[in-house]
């Protein structure tokens, strides 16, 4: 039996004005378990708290009910008071007689009556309270960043600069991501490589950072502070630690006609290749689908020319297991396929290209060395049409496009149009737009410059059909402002393809039990207040894997994610919320219902031996809740068909007791 003390607060006249506090204290005196009941002007004041501490000692109280303001206001205060008095902090319950009673009711009799009932409910609950202790778990002071684009790079650098070790896992042979493929960046038009490659070098040289390039995460287990991750290092057939990146092998490789992914297939690379000059790590990789030696056992030229002896045709995929305290997802985006948009004749003409292809065409390190030449005949295009929103804001067909706005296209299209007019003033540039969306610092000014200073023609309307004929692309579109259909014979058409999350994101989310939205973007723990945390504790989000983002936004989010990781890794131990679910193993039948509804993946199953009354041993599958992962929503308790699952702090019997007390 509990020994409960009831403390009714006046809150000056806030409560006492509408509730007869003396009468409340008196009425609760006779409730089961109550051994002491009093009232005071300000329970939260030092004097009020001292009063509670003294009463606990004097009356040997085991539980406390404070009838006061909202628990959202002072629950923590009174829990600390209880701890000071030597009680378990979770033996305190608050009856909210201010916000939910005195402030909303005007009649003293009615208010007092309700306050008494709320007090009774709190007493009934405390009678069933049990001391709770938050679980503690150690923290592995290392972080894993998945994805080596600008988001991953920035997050890794920020964490490493704070003194923690970071590993980056990148699936491509080099870090750098999409930004490495860009030419200039809006709105300042810095060259992407000039601002990105120094950061890549910083990563390579940072003593706290390790890069697993050409690698993928293949398994994740554990929980916040204690993840165990298996990384698959794909065979690149070149010993990474020996290769000097001299490029002699690339020069001599006889297989020359492999489409170059880095230039989006607009030129060719060799079977052994270094994606681009500033690659990190600057190590060659052999493409096993193209290499004669690996396909047919004939050739071996690269091995012969490599003075360092780095070529290893026998290399196999290798699995490495590492421990981390925090994981940052930075898997980024890719442009959607234009396959379903053939009204724009992407498959029919080489001169219909995507914006990312245009970046490569204008990049000094690209297939045309930065000269704007159209892919079909390498002639300078005189008329260029840009089409925005290709696949963005497309709700009619999920296979075709994406319902969301891809966010970055308005700005990069303005950039492309402006740069074209700047470099080639004789070029006629037209942009078809639905809306021009430029909310960002100096963004609208940038777009206006494109039209006002550079003479880019913006047409409010959409292209409906592109017909390649001869060496021209006949573009048919609408001009809604002029209310006419326009026909332009263009030399080059650039499609602003929608962006979507990288394909690797979905399987990764499953491994991490991190939730995703219907578009496969990772969901944040709270859209406004916790934008860089995933709902899964210890998993953080950086960059476009969470939603379309430009570079400035990505970098700020990357820094924010790093700050959250640093905050986590700075702790030696993690204190959990003790109000978590737990399963009674004697009642659990291992049906998996609870795990199916758990948003956090906190529930696992294990086989356990039970000693039966007839002394036989029975092995049964039972649910186990990981208290470090459980957030205490209680969804599983309702799903559980056998009633084995319960939520500490809000047990079935506690809630039922409250219902009883209110309804009596």
């Amino acid at each position, binding site marked *: 039996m509990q020994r409960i003390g009831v403390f009714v607060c006046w809150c000056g006249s806030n409560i006492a004005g509408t509730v007869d506090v003396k009468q409340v204290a008196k009425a609760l005196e006779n409730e089961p378990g109550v051994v002491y009941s009093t009232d005071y002007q300000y329970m939260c004041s030092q004097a009020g708290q001292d009063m509670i501490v003294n009463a606990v000692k004097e009356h040997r109280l085991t539980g406390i009910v404070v009838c006061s303001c909202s628990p959202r206001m002072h629950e923590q205060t009174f829990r600390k008071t209880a701890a000071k008095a030597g009680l378990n902090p979770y033996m305190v319950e608050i009856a909210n007689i201010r916000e939910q009673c005195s402030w909303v009711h005007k009649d003293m009799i009615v208010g007092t009556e309700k306050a008494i009932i709320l007090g009774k409910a709190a007493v009934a609950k405390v009678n069933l309270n049990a001391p709770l202790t938050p679980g503690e778990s150690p923290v592995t002071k290392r972080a894993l960043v998945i994805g080596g684009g600008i988001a991953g790079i920035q997050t890794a650098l920020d964490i490493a600069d704070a003194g923690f070790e970071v590993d980056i896992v990148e699936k491509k042979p080099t870090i750098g991501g999409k930004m490495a493929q860009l030419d200039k960046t809006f709105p300042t038009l810095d060259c992407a490589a000039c601002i990105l490659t120094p950061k890549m070098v910083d990563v390579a040289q940072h003593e706290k950072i390790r890069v697993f390039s050409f690698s993928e995460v293949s398994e994740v287990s554990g929980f916040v502070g204690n993840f165990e991750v298996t990384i698959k290092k794909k065979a690149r057939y070149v010993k990474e630690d020996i290769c000097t990146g001299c490029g002699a092998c690339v020069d001599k490789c006889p297989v020359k006609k492999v489409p170059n992914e880095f230039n989006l297939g607009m030129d060719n690379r060799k079977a052994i290749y270094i994606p681009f000059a500033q690659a990190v790590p600057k190590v060659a990789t052999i493409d096993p689908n193209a290499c004669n030696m690996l396909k047919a056992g004939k050739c071996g030229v690269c091995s012969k020319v490599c003075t360092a002896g780095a070529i290893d045709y026998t290399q196999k995929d290798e699995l490495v297991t590492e421990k981390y305290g925090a994981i940052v997802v930075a898997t980024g985006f890719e442009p959607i396929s234009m*396959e*379903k*948009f*053939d*009204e724009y*004749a992407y*498959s*029919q003409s080489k001169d219909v290209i995507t914006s990312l292809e245009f970046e490569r065409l204008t990049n000094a390190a690209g297939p045309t060395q930065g000269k704007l030449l159209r892919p079909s005949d390498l002639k300078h295009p005189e008329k260029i049409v840009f089409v925005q929103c290709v696949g963005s804001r497309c709700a009619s*067909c999920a296979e075709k496009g994406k319902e969301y706005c891809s966010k970055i296209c308005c700005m990069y299209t303005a950039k492309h149009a402006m740069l074209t007019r700047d470099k080639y003033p004789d070029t006629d540039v037209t942009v078809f737009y639905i809306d021009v969306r430029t909310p960002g610092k100096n963004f609208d000014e940038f777009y206006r410059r494109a039209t006002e200073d550079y003479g880019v023609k913006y047409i409010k309307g959409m292209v409906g*059909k*592109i*017909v*390649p*004929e*001869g060496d021209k692309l006949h573009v048919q579109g609408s001009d809604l402002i002029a209310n006419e259909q326009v026909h332009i014979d263009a030399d080059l058409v650039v499609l602003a393809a929608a962006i979507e999350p990288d394909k690797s994101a979905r399987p990764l989310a499953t491994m991490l039990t991190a939730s995703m939205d219907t578009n496969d973007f990772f969901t944040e723990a709270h859209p406004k207040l916790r934008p860089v945390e995933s709902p899964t504790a210890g998993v953080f989000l950086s960059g476009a894997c969470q939603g379309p983002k430009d570079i400035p936004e990505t970098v700020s989010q990357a820094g924010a994610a790093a700050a959250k990781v640093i905050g986590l890794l700075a702790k030696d131990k993690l204190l959990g919320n003790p109000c978590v679910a737990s399963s009674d193993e004697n009642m659990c039948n291992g049906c998996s219902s609870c795990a199916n509804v758990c948003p956090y993946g906190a529930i696992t199953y294990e086989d356990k031996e039970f000693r039966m009354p007839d002394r036989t041993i029975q092995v049964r599958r039972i649910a186990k809740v990981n208290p470090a992962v459980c957030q205490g929503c209680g969804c599983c308790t309702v799903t559980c068909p056998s009633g084995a699952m319960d939520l500490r702090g809000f047990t079935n019997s506690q809630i039922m007791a409250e219902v009883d007390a209110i309804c009596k």
Partner: protein
Amino acid sequence: MKVTYFPGCTLKNKAKDLDRYARECAEILGITLEEAENWQCCGGVFTTAGDEIATKLSSVRVLKAAKEKGEALVTVCSACHNVVKQTNYAMQNDRSFADKVNRYMADEEPYNGETQIYHYLELLRDVVGFDKLREKVVNPLKGKKIGAYYGCLLLRPGKVMGLDDPENPTVMEELIRALGAEPVVFANRNECCGGYVFAENPELAKKKSTAVLSNAKANGADMVITACPLCKYNLQKSASDVPVVYFTELLAEALGVKESCNE
């Protein structure tokens, strides 16, 4: 394999070529086209309005007839195909429409879109298979550069017709390749020929048809094939000199039965 065949009005009359070659070639490929009994005109155009019932009943009747025989329904004419397929889709997906139709027909067993419908091209692709078709070709059309004109009716609405990618169809190109000729892809292959508008505004129809054929010619086509009698009519009235034939004629030629069909 035996299928129920819905020829439609035009194939019995002005487009006998389309019909004759289709039947003969199907036999060679192991499929018997058995003409539905007492079929009625499809209506020519599918009225998209959900409250139009009467104009769609003839399609439901032939669909029902095929269901009763337990056979798939095959059409050759693009217009028939469009109307029958759209009607079937509405019977499957528009509950209130299907209820009204079934109440009107007052048959014992209601029809709810169970029949499988093939366009002749789908039959070639999905049932016969282009590889098998290629084996049966005795007279490969080597060196011919042929443009496939789809028009609108075969492809749109894409979700309902489901015959091919509405913006980048390939079925006729594959057919052309299987027959030994070289397909010529041209962007206007799914642009409208002008349709029924020729009756009121022949100039508009002519303009559209000319745009189709000149695009085909510019991309190197010597000839254009179609599955639609109205398309063929409009295209032939255009200002272009590119010959337009039914795809079945080409098929018959490659299978070596063109002459015998005409006897």
